[in-house]
Structures are given as C-alpha cells and as structure tokens.
C-alpha cells in the first residue's frame, strides 16, 4: 500500500493526463484486486498462520506454536499417507514422462493420422478424473478387463483396488492415463527446437537412433523436461479425486493420501489448524522436490 500512498506526489508531477490514465488503470485492476485480496493474498497468509493454531471453526483460534507439527510428526497416519503419496508419485511421474516422450517422438513428424492420434492422446487430459474413475472401478474389478489381461501376461489377477499392495499402482495407472497427453504436447512443442542440422550430421556420422536421442534430442528438451517434472510432481502430490471415488483411501488406508488426510482433518473433523499444517507440509515437500529436480536435471549439462 506504500505505492498508493505516494501516488499524489508522483501524479502531480506528471500532469492531468497521466493522472487520468492512472485512475483508469487502477479502476480496471480494482475488481480483480479485491477478489485477489479476499481469496488469494488473505488466505495465503491465513493458511500459514492457521497451521500454528488449534482453529476449529467453532471457537476463535489460539496460537499453539509448533504443536500441530509435532503432532504431525508423531502421527502414524501422516507417515502412512506420506508413504502412499510418495509411492504414487514415484510411479506416476516417470511413467507419465516416459509415455509422453515416447508418443511425442512417434507423432513428431506430420503423417496421415498424426493429428488424430494427438487428439486421442489428449482426450483424457480434458476428462474429469471423477468421471473416468467411475469406469476405472469396473476396469479394475475382480473379473474385469485389467485382471483378465494380467491373467494372460502372468501378472497379479483379481481386483487391484481391493489389494493393499496393488491399489497404489492401479491408481498410478489411472494417473498416467489422465496426464501423459499433456506432457506429450509440451514435449512436441519443445521438439521443434531440436536443431535439424545436428540430427542430420549425426546421422551422416552413423549415429544410431538411441545416440541421436541421447546426445541431440534430449539436451534440447531439458527445460521442458524440468517443467514437466515439476508440474507432474506437484499434481501427483495432490492426488485426490480418483482416490476419493475409486477407493475412498482403502483398503485399510492403503491408498490414503496426504490431500485425503487434509480433507478429512479439515472437513470431516473440522480440525482446521491441523489441516492447514498438513497443507504447509505438502507445500514444503513440493518445494524440496522441485529444488532436487532442478539440481538433478540442471547438473547434466
């Protein structure tokens, strides 16, 4: 607000036209600004502060210091949901990126039908995971298609959603299905920047497909890959919709994720201080992983 306070002095110097411009500018920003103060800036600060209180919607919040965080540290449910979330992320993110990369390379050059393929691959991205989940429940049911296919290839048959080991991989498959089309488009856009001369030169020198990919294509995709890794990790850490519909966190908390715990704490038990603390923990985890990804992907120059 310091900026607004110095407004009269600066404006007087600039004359009536500039003053009018400034007034119009502020007027145009005002509606968005009010909404941002109410629903973004305010809640951002409040979200951090609430994490250090015992707020429960009924009474006014009391400052409790780090109590929520020590409670979180001692909460076996937190460690279990953290483990589930990390496991889900560890399967989903590489799976999504590998699938996106493969399909981007395959549809890279225009050919008859390439546009149709891209449209098909992107369709799950625009589809609500809630809707998709209603059919994936059937796909993963005891005698459903997935179990049948697993029978053919000698995998684990039966309902994956009812199995405490296979439930997270099943959810990860749905996650990959719903996200790889987005990664494919990002990588396709980035593949335009691969220098064609280099690829041709490498081919003339007898470099195989893998070598061309490793030494020519991959280096130019690094920024896009970093972007994707961060976006996909963030999305995976926040997995909720599919879990809520498909398993409800079960069987026996085997698919109970961090956001599910946050949802329960906040909106089932109205333990809003504790829920905010979980939100902060999630935020910090996302930041840490982004920094690690930056280091790993950036280092390979």
């Amino acid at each position, binding site marked *: 607000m310091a900026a607004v306070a110095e407004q009269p002095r600066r404006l007087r110097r600039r004359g009536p036209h500039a003053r009018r411009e400034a007034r119009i500018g502020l007027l145009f920003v005002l509606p*968005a600004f009010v909404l941002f103060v109410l629903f973004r800036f305010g809640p951002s600060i409040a979200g951090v502060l*609430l994490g250090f209180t015992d707020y429960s919607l009924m009474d006014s919040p009391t400052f409790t210091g780090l109590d929520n965080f020590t409670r979180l540290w001692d909460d076996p449910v937190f460690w279990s949901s953290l483990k589930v979330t990390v496991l889900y992320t560890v399967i989903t993110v590489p799976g999504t990126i590998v699938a996106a990369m493969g399909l981007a390379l395959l549809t890279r*050059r225009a050919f008859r039908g390439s546009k149709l393929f891209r449209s098909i691959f992107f369709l799950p991205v625009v589809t609500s995971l809630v809707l998709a989940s*209603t059919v994936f429940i059937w796909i993963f049911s005891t005698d459903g298609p997935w179990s049948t296919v697993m029978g053919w290839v000698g995998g684990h048959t039966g309902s994956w959603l009812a199995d405490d080991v296979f439930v997270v991989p099943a959810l990860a498959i749905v996650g990959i299905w719903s996200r790889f089309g987005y990664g494919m488009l990002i990588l396709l856009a980035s593949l335009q920047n691969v220098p064609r001369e280099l690829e041709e030169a490498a081919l003339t020198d007898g470099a195989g497909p893998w070598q061309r990919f490793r030494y020519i294509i991959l280096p130019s995709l690094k920024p896009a890959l970093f972007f994707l890794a961060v976006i996909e990790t963030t999305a995976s850490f926040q997995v909720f*919709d599919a879990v809520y519909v498909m398993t409800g966190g079960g069987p026996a908390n085997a698919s109970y994720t961090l956001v599910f715990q*946050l949802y329960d704490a906040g909106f089932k038990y109205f333990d809003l201080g504790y829920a905010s603390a979980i939100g902060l923990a999630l935020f910090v985890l996302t930041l840490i992983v982004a920094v690690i990804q930056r280091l790993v992907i950036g280092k390979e120059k």
Partner: protein
Amino acid sequence: MSLDTHGTHEAREAREVTVTESPSVVAVKGRPPRSRLRSRGRDRFGAGREQDTVPYALRGTRRGKVLRGVLLGVVALATIFPFYAMVVLSLKPSGAVEFPGSLLPWNLTTSAYSDVLGSQDVPQWLINTLIYSIVGVLGTLLLSALAGYAFAKKRFPGREAMFWSFLSMVMVPYHVTMIPTFVLIAKMNGVDTYWGLILPSLANAQAVFLMRQFIQGLPDELFEAAKIDGASEFQIFVRIVLPLIKPIMATLGTFVFLWHWNDFLWPLIVGQSTDMRTLTVGIASLQQQNVPLNVVLAGSVVAFVPIFMAYLVGQRYVTEGVAATGIKG
C-alpha cells in the same frame, strides 16, 4: 500440424528439402506452416504428408513406419477403451458387468438414461455445473481482461508490484489457501450458495498473466488513435480491446470452462446439500451409494458429453494454448 509455430525454422527446413523433395515444396517455401500443410495432399510420389520438410535421411524406413503405426494404434486403443466401456456399459441393463461379454455393442437399452435424467438430482446438478462453468468463464475473462489491459497498457503507481504479487499467487498451492477461503465463505454465509461456489474461482492469477502478456504484444497506436478520436476509456475497452483479444479469450475461455466443469474438491466442500452439488460431486456421491454401474456411468456420460463437445470445438485453442504457454490441462 498446428504446433509448428517456428516460422524461421520451417523456412530453413524447406530450403534443405528442395534437394530431395518434389518441386511443390519449393513453391511454398516461406509460407506459414499450417497453410502449407493444408494445401498439400498426397504429393506426386504418393507418399502422403510425412515427407514435407523431412530430409530424406531422417525419413523412416517402411518397417519403421509400420512399427510406429502399430505402436500408436495400440496406445490409442488403450487410451480410448475407458471411454468406449463407459458408453457401452451405460447402455446395458443393470447388472450387465461381466467381461468381455458386456462390452459387445448390442442388447442396448436407454433405461439407465431415463433413470438418470428422470431423477430429481442429475438435472439439478447439470444446471449447477452449467451455472458454475458459464459464470466462472465470463467472470474470469472479464476480470482478467480488465486487469490484463491495465497492467499492459496503463501506467499507474504500484503497477509492477501489484502485477508480480498477483503472479506470485500461482506458486501458493491450492491446498494452503483452500481452508481459509472456506472459513471466509462460511463466515459470510456463502456455503451452499452459488456465489460462494463461484466467487473465489474468479481470482485467477494465470488468466491475468496470460491476458497481460497478450495485450502487451498489441501496438499502442491502436488505443492512442481511438483516444484521439475522443472515445471514452469504456468505449476503447469494449470496441477495441475486447475484439483484439478474441484469440486469447478463446484459449483461456476453453481452459477456464474445463477447470470449472471438472472441478471437484471446492464444489465438494462448498456444496453441502444435495441440491447444490455439481455433476462431479453428484456422480461421486452416486458411486458411494451403491447405485448400479449402468446408472452411474450414464451420469458420467451426461457429464462428459459437454466436455467432449467443448474439446471438439476448442481443440485448436487447447493444443495451441498448451504448446505456447504450458497452461495446465
């Protein structure tokens, strides 16, 4: 394909191609890539579109192409399979869930659809979703166009600070702000109301950012000329700014529509009575109440059709939007 937007790169490729390619490529060199693709069908060698701009050496072998076709075909079928199953099973009598028998497209009945559309809930949820999505899109577009125009073309004190603080809100995860936002809405008695559902979703940092970027690219002269002609600021905004930003409005509008239509957590929290549910929340509740599969899936199809239509119509905006801005899907 619409994704090749790098004109200079294309032109360079076209030049190289002339060594091995049919003369038609020489003729179109330097033109924008999309018009070239559109103007070319099969070339005189009968090899289809793949060969334009691809030097001979980088073209795949016949075996490679077959392999690529098979791979893409398999992945495409696996990708579509859930959609196919959703539609077919929703058209089966209740209890037809065995695999693979129930996937065959006969013995179809629309009884699940009469159940769904004849119920009190689903039409109400559809109306709620339409209100949430349409008001959400219009509100977000209007607010972000106003703010984006001011940030891009108006000089006012604190402009940069304000813009960057807007943008920084992209970094704060939704789950941190969600709880205080709910508390605020609850204190204002906005739980179970349309405005409580819609209003928080209008503060969209990504939309303001994209609008500002787009409007910054428009030449100042367009606005100056109108001002000299004596147009008021409001007239300039309505008659000049709004028509000029149609492309970004189409892209942004499609995405904001998708986000609202598919939104789940916020409507789940705010819409607590059955009447205030959106389709995603309602269908999730059907799923939990052990409603027969064909009925749940009929609900899913009803909720999916508008998205599918929006995707068909706005597909170009979606794919170009993702490619150009990385806007999240």
